[in-house]
């Protein structure tokens, strides 16, 4: 079979004015680095499951993307991470949600797929399983980045103002 790999790093309103040429170049470089990490596994005969993990780890470890380091903040200024993985040969799959200390959530999703009888684990239970599987843990602060902290601070300020202004300003609605 031919080999190929493709990725995304999130979709949305990516405003050119927010991306200087230098930052844009950083994104292109990190996207290509992650592609090559997975592609070399495919080239050496490795599995697509291993290639996926190698690629996503590069993106989780980069502060540029909303996954792993660089994740957005919850209302309580924490980072709650989710991940899932699936293989097309057996339709086997693994998924986790709401972890806060596992450095690479995609590795935990893969362990759920291969080392447990389940498909999806969540929260503290998922982290207990991660410990059993000797996955790397980090302090919650590892995931923090100034850009995302600023984002949540702005939102919480708006939300506070909305509560004050809500009766008069219907635009301030948060789901």
């Amino acid at each position, binding site marked *: *079979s*031919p*080999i*190929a*790999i*493709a*990725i*995304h*790093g*999130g*979709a949305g*309103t*990516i405003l050119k004015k927010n*991306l200087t040429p230098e930052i844009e170049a950083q*994104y*292109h470089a990190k*996207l*290509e680095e992650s*592609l*090559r990490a*997975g*592609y070399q596994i*495919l080239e050496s*005969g490795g*599995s*697509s499951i291993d290639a*996926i993990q190698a*690629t*996503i780890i590069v993106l*989780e470890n980069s502060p540029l993307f*909303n*996954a*792993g380091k*660089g*994740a*957005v903040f*919850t*209302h309580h200024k924490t*980072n*709650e*991470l*989710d*991940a*899932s*993985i*699936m*293989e*097309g040969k057996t*339709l086997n799959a693994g*998924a*986790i*949600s*709401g972890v806060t200390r596992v450095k690479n959530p*995609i590795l935990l*999703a893969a362990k759920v797929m291969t080392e447990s009888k389940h*498909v*999806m684990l969540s929260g503290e239970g998922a982290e207990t399983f991660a410990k059993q599987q000797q996955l790397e843990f980090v302090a919650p602060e590892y995931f923090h980045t100034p850009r*995302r902290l600023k984002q*949540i601070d702005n939102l919480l300020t708006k*939300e506070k103002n909305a509560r004050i202004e809500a009766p008069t300003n219907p635009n301030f609605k948060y789901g």
Partner: protein
Amino acid sequence: TVGAVALDKHGNLAAGTSTGGMTNKKFGRIGDSPIIGAGTYADNKACAISATGHGEYFIRAAVAHDICARVLYQGVSLQAAADAVIFDKLKNMGGDGGIVGMSPQGDPVFSFNTPGMYRGYIDKSGSVFTGIY
């Protein structure tokens, strides 16, 4: 959110997605990324999909599985199946976002109804592409 899809030398497809979720989320809110069939799906007979976007809509539309099902049961191309879900079904529900897909023949596919999506591929000829808008 980040995701990847791949085809290996043995003809096996795989898909994976990882995310920090939604800014300011509360009450343990979960989006589509960890939901098999919504944010992630892979079937050697059809395709591998990883999604990113407004998770609530991707869950309700079962986006990743729906795209693979259209390939499998309607016999349409992966690009046609992806565009039908992203630009028709999802858009009509008010959902926005995109997917990266891989066909069993090793053809990468992108489909997104937003101004931008960070994306890239190394295709079966070894050529590299990365894009933002």
